[in-house]
């Protein structure tokens, strides 16, 4: 049943915080090398969904995840080495987090923790990842400056470079443009389009138009329920679509 095309397969996913159910009954496949958009109003469970994928729930005692998440056919619950699992999944948060260390060390962090020590190799990874995150030109002369003191938009690209330095198969972006200006947003969107050849991307966004620009397919979450998932353009213009989805993407909601 699991064909090579499917990167991530989610079945019967239920996420709760204590008595509060944040997400229930989610069945969803993510294909290799696609950008899957996830849209939905605040509190619909988008961030919780991402956190379940790399088992961040284990670091939050209140959060419980049930159901199956198959990553390349392996149930992530059964992965013994959770650190190796997390290394294959890059994450970008809504608010950019430059770690309080140099720009170089930010990007070299993930390679170092997986044991890469050689200077030349690290140099190569740092440059490649910064280039791909469209940040290299701005910081190449000050790699020794603090990453946490870059501007918000630069820090967000630094975060992307850092996620790429993990050499991930799957990149999760959670409302990455919330603290970023429109020009930088466009640059990052270009970067993401370019990355599609190498990895699979899940893009959570509050901007419906961003999903429309980038996502091959889009899923609509509402109140902890996956209302539907389909080819992005179809959600906006196609004929057979849940009325709630259509209302949401057209901004006629509530």
């Amino acid at each position: 049943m699991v064909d090579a095309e499917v990167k991530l397969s989610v079945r019967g996913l239920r996420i709760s915080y204590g008595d509060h159910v944040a997400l229930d009954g989610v069945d969803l496949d993510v294909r290799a090398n696609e950008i899957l958009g996830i849209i939905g109003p605040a509190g619909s469970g988008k961030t919780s969904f991402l956190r379940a994928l790399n088992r961040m729930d284990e670091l939050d005692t209140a959060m419980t995840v049930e159901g199956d998440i198959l990553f390349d056919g392996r149930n992530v619950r059964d992965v013994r080495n959770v650190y190796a699992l997390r290394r294959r999944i890059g994450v970008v948060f809504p608010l950019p987090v430059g770690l309080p260390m140099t720009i170089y060390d930010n990007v070299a962090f993930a390679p170092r923790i997986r044991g890469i020590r050689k200077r030349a190799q690290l140099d190569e990874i740092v440059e490649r990842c910064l280039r791909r995150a469209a940040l290299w030109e701005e910081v190449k002369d000050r790699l020794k400056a603090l990453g946490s003191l870059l501007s918000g938009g630069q820090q967000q690209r630094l975060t992307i470079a850092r996620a790429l330095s993990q050499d991930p198969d799957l990149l999760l972006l959670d409302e990455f443009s919330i603290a970023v200006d429109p020009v930088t947003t466009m640059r990052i969107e270009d970067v993401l389009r370019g990355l599609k050849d190498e990895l699979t991307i899940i893009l959570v966004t509050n901007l419906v138009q961003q999903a429309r620009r980038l996502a091959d397919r889009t899923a609509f979450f509402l109140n902890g329920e996956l209302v539907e998932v389909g080819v992005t353009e179809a959600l906006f213009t196609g004929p057979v679509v849940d009325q709630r989805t259509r209302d949401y993407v057209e901004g006629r909601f509530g």
Partner: protein
Amino acid sequence: MFAATALDHRNRRTQRAFKALFGLMTLMLITPVIIILTVLVVKGGPALSMEFLFSAPSNGMTAGGIFPALVGTVWLVAVALLASVPVGVASAIYLAEYAPDNWFTRLINLAIINLAGVPSIVHALFGVGAFVLFAGFGESILAASLTLAVMTLPVVIVATRESLQAVPKAFREACWNMGATRWQTIWKVVLPNSISGILTGVILEVSRTSGETAPIMFTGAALFLPFLPQGVLDQTMALSLHLFVLSTQVPNVPEHLEYGVALVLIGMVLAMNALSIGFRVYLRGRKKW
């Protein structure tokens, strides 16, 4: 257009009254400090000399200097630091970074807070029971320092925990998401950004122990012992106890001697505090986020 209403006037009067009141309170707060320092300097200053600092008391402690007590206090504080800092910092790291948030952890935290409130004389008696008698260290620097260490442990833990918690959660999450273990996160991100705060807090708190008298009185500090300690199992004199003895136990001590001891003791504490404040200012200047 901007004419003040009656309400504006009343608000302004209230505001002035409170400002004056709070200012007065602050003044009252620092007055005793200023008076104490002035008296100490005026009365104790004349006693200070190389000879006072570097010779032993003589003539039944009515003359001579304070050298054994000075050295003894340094020993006591240093050994107490060696004992309390590793244990305190390690438990604070465990409590802040590893421990799950459950009733047991909360109980431990409650215990730590209460431990900080235990009177020093109770610690002293505990020290006699645990270190002098049970552990068999006898009255010694080791027993006295361990007693001081137990007493300072809660403050070391609290100071460390606060420094750790000042490092934003987002940094930790970023590391965990990259596949770092908790220890890698602590070692590479949390500690480098809190170690200086930890040290500052620790110096500040431990400097206070140098003035403690009760905990060392029955556990290792001697009334009169004009030799320097040779090791941690020796007894020793200490500045705080020496001051107590001079002022209450020995007749006919010249006043300037007593004040001199007090001045040296308070000078040591203030010097350590100044060091720690300077450290803090320096660190704030290079804050990384």
